[in-house]
């Protein structure tokens, strides 16, 4: 019985690993989309961003910003020096795409000028 359980658990973990990688990419894409949207609202009208952004949207946007900052800090090779342009290029990926590039690839591509 234990052996079957173990096998079943291994199967689950196995199945979960690629899904998890894709989830990370999705998470980054949606977070960066949130970040871009918040700044669009900020530039559209005074106070609008504060009034129409939920706390979870704000947290997601902050996550994107944090990931970008951290990537630029550890990758001197990033040619793009505007984090907003980077965020916008990541946000341009379709969030529900079957195959998103891995997080690392997303970040690398966003550095292109």
């Amino acid at each position: 019985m234990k052996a079957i359980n173990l096998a079943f658990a291994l199967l689950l973990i196995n199945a979960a690993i690629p899904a998890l990688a894709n989830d990370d990419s999705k998470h980054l894409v949606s977070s960066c989309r949130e970040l871009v949207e918040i700044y669009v609202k900020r530039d559209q009208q005074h106070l609008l961003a504060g009034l129409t952004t939920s706390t979870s949207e704000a947290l997601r946007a902050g996550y994107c910003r944090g990931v970008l900052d951290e990537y630029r800090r550890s990758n001197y090779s990033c040619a793009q020096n505007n984090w907003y342009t980077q965020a916008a290029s990541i946000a341009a990926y379709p969030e529900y795409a079957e195959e998103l590039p891995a997080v690392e690839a997303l970040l690398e591509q966003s550095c292109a000028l």
Partner: protein
Amino acid sequence: MRSDAKKWPEHTTILERLLCPPLLAPLSQKQYGALRIALNTLVEALASPTVKGRGPLKTILPPLMDMKRDRPSGPGATGSREHWYINPNDEVLIWNAIILQGLFGAPKTAVMLIREPSERQAYVDWAMQLFLDRQSVAGLGLLRQELIILLDRLPQCDMANEKLPNPFADALPQMGFGPHKGNLLKTLATQTAALSVGDSMMAHYLNGDLELAYRQACDVQTDNALLMKYRDLIINEYQEAKEFDDLLDFLR
């Protein structure tokens, strides 16, 4: 039907029968001072003739109810108060007068509404608007359902025989609340006026212009609890949104 005037109860007995409970007997307790004065003025008004018109058109209407006054005489009676005896058949009339005085303030208005059914509709409309459309009935300590029934019945009510429902939860306005000592009318007017101070603030707020609402809110000086709540809410909301804007700019 006239009952034997010698057996009429004192007016305080009748008032206690009508008002206790919910109030506590005896009404002579200190806490009911304002109420006693208001009710005595009302009883006095009901038992006095009404003068209508001026000059040659002047007519004197008989009192709405009978009242026998008796001041004890003899040695030691100097300075003792006058006793008022009231026909128990007038109990319903007194009750209705108390309710009307509570709602509309002046005993004069209560007497006028009892005398002139044609005047009642205007007051009903006014009360509907103030109590039910513009104000929170609960905030004034009124029972909504009873108030609706009362306003519904008032225009055609036979004041001597039909008891109006009591819209006051557990206290009478005559007991004196707020700065206007039991005049619900003035209290309401003040509240409405206070709200109008905040009208432009609320208008901007409800239009979604938080910036303008905030600027108005900073100028609003009020004791009105409801208005204060909105003012603080608007200021808070503005400051939060402003803070977010500033943070976004800082992170650019």
